[in-house]
């Protein structure tokens, strides 16, 4: 049994001087629901194109179910929905879906596919007369027209209303629950957070984070602690910022004093439990203590931001050494 659905090994792809994908190593395992996150131009669509064999890598190799992407597609193991996937015009929705079901080696029944994609009521409509969100659902129907093992979706909910998006997520989850591996690119972090059990963060063509949504958040300093310290709360020796800074897990510290004698403290920490325990251990008496998680959005910005700063420093160092 193949334990790999897809694998990228040292994959690189450039367009002229732009490095769209840079040394990508990645393995997708059966049954995973994986979100591919990244800002525009991070290389998400190029990576999916490479995965599906629509483009050839310059370096490295891409395999799907142990073979070439094309052979996997011909065996009916992959269903995909592209961001730029145009639809046939002058045909009705059910005719187009029937085409997709017919050409799939393990095609499903048209009625079933229409139901699963939530477009039964659109069946008789002309494809060229659909709204953006409806078109997306027809594209999704094409991706699930057969009994594929892997479903690839490139920004599937672009152009959908909030409530339609919720319904769409249910359709995506149903695919995952049926035991299929699902890989989707998105720039809606909420989408990744609520559906994916694994999140990949792509930035400038490189994979900079790979883990569960909780792990990604933890990596970015997952929790925020906020409290007030009144005069006298910090023991006899008065207020000492160094004590706070020395708490375990602390990544950033912010102290403001708007009212005399009352300080508001905000801490971002990688280990909230240890930080809070140590806070009391140091003899402090925090008031109105709150511990909150940062969203994936914040985590994402932190991670990509750190990387941008690191790149900027490296470039500066390079310039330095040239001199």
């Amino acid at each position, binding site marked *: 049994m193949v334990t790999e659905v897809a694998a990228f090994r040292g994959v690189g792809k450039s367009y002229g001087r732009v490095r769209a994908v840079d040394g990508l190593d990645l393995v997708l395992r059966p049954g995973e629901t994986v979100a591919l996150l990244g800002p525009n131009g991070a290389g998400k669509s190029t990576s999916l194109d490479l995965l599906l064999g629509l483009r050839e890598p310059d370096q490295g190799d891409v395999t799907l179910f142990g073979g070439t992407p094309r052979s996997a*597609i011909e065996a009916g193991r992959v269903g*995909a929905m592209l961001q730029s996937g*145009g639809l046939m015009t002058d045909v009705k929705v059910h005719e187009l879906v029937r085409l997709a079901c017919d050409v799939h080696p393990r095609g499903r029944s048209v009625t079933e596919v229409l139901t699963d994609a939530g477009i039964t009521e659109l069946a008789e409509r002309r494809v060229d007369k659909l709204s953006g969100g409806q078109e997306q659902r027809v594209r999704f129907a094409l991706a699930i027209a057969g009994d594929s093992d892997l479903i690839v979706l490139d920004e599937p909910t672009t152009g959908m209303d909030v409530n339609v998006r919720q319904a769409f997520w249910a359709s995506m989850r149903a695919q995952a629950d049926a035991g299929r591996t699902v890989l989707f690119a998105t720039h809606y972090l909420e989408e990744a957070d609520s559906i994916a059990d694994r999140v990949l963060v792509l930035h400038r063509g490189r994979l900079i984070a790979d883990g569960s949504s909780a792990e990604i958040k933890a990596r970015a300093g997952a929790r925020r602690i906020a409290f007030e310290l009144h005069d006298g709360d910090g023991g006899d020796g008065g207020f000492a910022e160094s004590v706070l800074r020395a708490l375990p897990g602390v990544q950033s510290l912010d102290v403001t004093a708007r009212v005399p004698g009352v300080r508001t403290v905000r801490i971002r920490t990688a280990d909230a439990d240890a930080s809070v325990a140590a806070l009391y251990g140091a003899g402090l008496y925090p008031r109105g203590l709150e511990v909150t998680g940062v969203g994936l959005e914040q985590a994402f910005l932190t991670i990509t931001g750190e990387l941008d700063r690191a790149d900027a420093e490296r470039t500066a160092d390079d310039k330095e050494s040239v001199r």
Partner: protein
Amino acid sequence: MTTLIRLEILRTLRNRRYLFFTVVYPAVLYVFFINAYGSADQAGGLPVKTYFMVSMATFGAVGAVLSGSAQRISLERKSGWVRQLRLTALPGRAYTIGKIAATAVTTLPAILVVFAVGLTQGVSLSLPQWIGLAVALWLGSFVFAALGVALGYAATPDAVQPIVMITYMAMALLGGTWFPVSGSLEKFARFDPVYLYNQLATFTRPGQSLDMVAVGGLAAFFAVFLVAAAALYRRDTRQA
């Protein structure tokens, strides 16, 4: 693949604008031409009514395959439908075959409607001649279907419209579509596929058989267009 071909044919027949320009328009032009020529009874060695019946049938057929394949392919490359199809188990050639099949089906009404009008206008041919002419013109249209595929893969939708129009009109002008070519023009016309296409009808003249030079010339053009279409298709695939 049959589903794809069936759907391609269906959507082509559903497109009213397309049917108007390829079926109705040449038939109307035909009536106009034979009335304009009126008194003269010979054109290019054939009765006027026969000559323009053939030239308008080829006009419609060439228009049908050029716009049907070139414009659609170009548009669908841009819209991403071609990419979407590449994610199915269909072989790459299925799309092109579907396009050619669909246009081939629609050239038949373009030819037959003009023939029907010709019949009512008193064109007299024997039954084998009618059938032979229809088959010859229908088969000849495949040459232009190949050209249409090549143009569809060569140009973007913005560019393909004027390219198709210019190619079509230039070939028609020199090819005897609107007036019989004679004298020095004929020397150049021999390198025009539309001229050769129209020459397929000369077997209906008394005592003449099928113009094998025209058949050979069309076959050569067909080969050239096919090679070009295949090369452009591969280039397009590499660019995703």
